């Protein structure tokens, strides 16, 4: 079996967790792992209704120079999770639904283990903006972000 990077395993875990939530209003194919978060149509669903989507992409690893033990290193593998929806500046449409998505994602990832990835000690979630106000006012889009960090302790080779 080919080796798979921790970052990819983590993103696949996050994707599977979000899909398993059965979030009302978003098809399973709307939860996507990407290299670079993007809503270009060629990256989204084949269906004309590309929105809403939840996009997942890696961020730069974090390394504490003194983190770990004499023989192990602590390395963090962060992942961005971004929720995109088109509500056309409507103050009511999808409001509670999208907040609930965010809440469910946080509760199902924060302070959890990543099943099947033993080298990840713990997942933590750092909330980003609930909604980006400038994009909402300019383009009528709901853009909401979270950051999931995987704490790992790795035996030094």
């Amino acid at each position, binding site marked *: 079996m080919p080796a798979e990077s921790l970052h990819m395993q983590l993103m696949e875990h996050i994707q599977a967790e979000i899909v398993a939530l059965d979030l009302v209003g978003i098809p399973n194919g709307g939860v996507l792992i990407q290299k670079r978060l*993007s809503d*270009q149509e060629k990256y989204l669903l084949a269906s004309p209704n590309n929105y809403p989507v939840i996009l997942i992409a890696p961020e730069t690893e974090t390394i504490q120079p003194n983190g770990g033990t004499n023989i192990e290193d602590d390395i963090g593998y962060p992942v961005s999770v*971004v929720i995109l929806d088109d509500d056309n500046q409507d103050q009511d449409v999808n409001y509670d639904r999208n907040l609930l998505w965010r809440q469910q994602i946080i509760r199902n990832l924060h302070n959890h283990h990543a099943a099947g990835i033993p080298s990840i000690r713990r997942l933590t979630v750092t909330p980003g903006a609930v909604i980006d106000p400038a994009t909402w006012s300019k383009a009528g889009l709901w853009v909401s972000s979270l950051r999931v960090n995987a704490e790992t302790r790795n035996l030094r080779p």
Partner: protein
Amino acid sequence: MAATTPQISYALDWHWWDNTESVTASLTRRTTTTTVTISDAFRGDISRTAGDVLGAELVANSQIWSIPASLMGVNEFVQGDTITDADSVVWSVEGAVLVTLGNSKLYWTVATNKRKGS
């Protein structure tokens, strides 16, 4: 000495436009949505741009519309209104300018973005 020439209205200059199309404007104010059918809207520049928002690349498919002011009647465009074109594509209003000449209200220049999934 004040000018005595008759005042000319330019409000119907749009009659000279060609290649127009029929669109529908939906204007929401508080809890009421007013629908206005525009028989002669004129498509302007189209642009494709991308911006970075919270680390995500968001693509904008933008379209400028010219909408005769006389066909809008007393109605005006504001952000968040929509224009539905002849192909049923929905365009969300990002901003609008009413072009005037003296007392004449000529047309609205409306900057729009194609709604995602439209």
